[in-house]
């Protein structure tokens, strides 16, 4: 996808934005996102009237204002000639908002486009939220009746991976530790305190073999990225990163295929990244930094293997040895990822793209990765049966 630059970005820290029970909300969804969008445009040196397209992540069921994209556009005084849309498809939702905003720029329909969204759902009753989510991640007639939660699918991955490779829960749990190691210096992160392995392992189980700190906490967020062409970005003279490759792949499953296949192989992740790398004219070895959509510890392990960063069955060992953490040779999710930066599912991809931008522009502060020149972002749709990848570089 040559032809796209990110020239502005802003986000709230990930965490609880919903008011505590009985308390009055500081701001509603549109006010929280409105402030973030104005900040992103301000950073880019443009105003709402410059925007031609706005692509929103579809709001979660907790968002009371429906027709949200239209409502939000009116609140910001946007006048659009490209498009106004809300998009969704499970974990690639944020990536799709980015992709479709980018498409409008590439097709000449937008000089400037926004990819943005807000999710304030931590106040929802958790039983209710899960009743909804079981309808998302399974066949409602032949799978949902058994109560499969979204992360149960990752637990299947973990159990099978341990069975096949001999990796232990403790090996995999190191992902939770290194996530905190990175998040410590990320002002947007939900959890910044260091963790010890014992602490992780003694937590109550959520979906065996994954305990409370190996799966994501509920989280809210709001984020906006501002896109334009590389030419326009250069003319503005603002610091920018460029998308140099894009790839999508699906293996045709919804969570799981209907005949035997290796659920830990994530072929869609491999395919999407390969397509993006090819377009960017580089290989996985040329990637200095990667943000992976990885809700659970095991997910980061499996994606790192699917991308070819480590041989099959060696991803957990790489985490345990510190290779993917602070100071390692294969840093993954320097934002802290879903476990520490936090995971508002529809927005996680946009937060990942934002982190790559900060790193590639050299302004990631104490977590700055030296020599980060080329970054890979990947997000997924339902146990990585489909994936969307982007390669980013600093705009020359």
């Amino acid at each position, binding site marked *: 996808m040559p032809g796209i630059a990110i020239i502005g970005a802003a986000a709230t820290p990930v965490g609880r934005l919903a008011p505590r029970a009985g308390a009055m909300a500081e701001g509603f969804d549109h006010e929280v996102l409105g402030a973030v969008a104005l900040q992103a445009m301000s950073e880019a040196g443009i105003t709402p009237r410059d925007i031609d397209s706005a692509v929103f992540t579809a709001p979660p069921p907790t968002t009371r204002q429906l027709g949200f994209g239209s409502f939000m556009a009116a609140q910001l005084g946007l006048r659009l000639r490209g498009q106004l849309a809300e998009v969704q498809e499970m974990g690639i939702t944020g990536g799709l908002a980015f992709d479709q905003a980018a498409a409008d720029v590439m097709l000449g329909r937008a000089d400037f486009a926004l990819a943005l969204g807000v999710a304030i759902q931590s106040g929802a009753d958790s*039983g*209710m939220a*899960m*009743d909804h*989510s*079981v*309808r998302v991640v*399974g*066949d*409602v*007639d*032949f*799978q*949902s*009746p*058994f*109560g*499969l*939660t979204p992360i*149960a699918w990752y*637990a*299947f*991955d*973990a*159990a*099978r991976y341990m*069975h096949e490779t001999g990796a232990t829960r403790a090996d995999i749990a190191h992902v939770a530790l290194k996530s905190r190691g990175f998040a410590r210096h990320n002002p947007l992160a939900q959890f910044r305190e260091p963790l010890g392995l014992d602490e992780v392992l003694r937590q*109550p*189980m*959520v*979906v*065996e*073999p994954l305990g409370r700190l190996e799966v994501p906490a509920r989280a809210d967020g709001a984020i906006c990225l501002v896109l334009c062409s590389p030419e326009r970005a250069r003319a503005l003279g603002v610091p920018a990163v460029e998308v140099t490759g894009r790839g999508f792949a699906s293996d*045709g499953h919804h969570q*799981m*295929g*209907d*005949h*035997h*296949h290796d*659920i830990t192989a994530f072929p869609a992740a491999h395919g999407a990244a390969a397509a993006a790398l090819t377009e960017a004219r580089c290989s996985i070895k040329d990637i200095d930094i990667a943000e992976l959509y990885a809700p659970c510890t095991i997910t980061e392990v499996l994606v790192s293997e699917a991308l070819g960063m480590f041989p099959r069955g060696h991803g957990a060992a790489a985490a345990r040895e510190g290779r993917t953490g602070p100071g390692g040779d294969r840093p993954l999710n320097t934002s802290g990822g879903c476990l520490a930066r936090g995971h508002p599912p529809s927005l996680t991809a946009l937060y990942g793209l934002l982190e790559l931008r900060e790193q590639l522009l050299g302004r990631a502060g104490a977590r700055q990765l030296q020599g980060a020149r080329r970054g890979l972002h990947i997000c997924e749709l339902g146990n990585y049966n489909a994936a969307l990848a982007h390669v980013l570089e600093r705009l020359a």
Partner: protein
Amino acid sequence: MSLPQVVLPGRRGIPPRVNTFTARFWSALEDGALLGTRCNACAHLTFPPRRICIACGAQDPEWIELSGAGTLYSATVIHAGPSLYWAGGPYTVGIIDLAEGPRLVTRVLGALPPPIGSPMQMVVTHHDDGCLFAATLAAAADN
């Protein structure tokens, strides 16, 4: 080839819907048979039953009875689940590869999840409001 029957008091958390096609499946299950579909165009065997073949797009399935024998491919115990299930405490779900080829996901009965690779037997579970299918260790089902 009737499957073992298990009675589980209480209602199903999210009861499956039934339509004029899947009614055949659910009534056969009630009678102890687990049905899948085979595509008359390409012979692809599917579970759950499907009107459209995912392998070739043909819309010409025939019903076939599955043995209910399979192998546990993976399993997890869910300790925090939806309100509709969670009331009963942790429950095990597993991926089963059936002897005939199809893969499915289902509830796994028993106090502890069986080791991955265990031989499994599909069973019919009878609830206050209808039936579902589930899996148990093959040895347990034999008892």
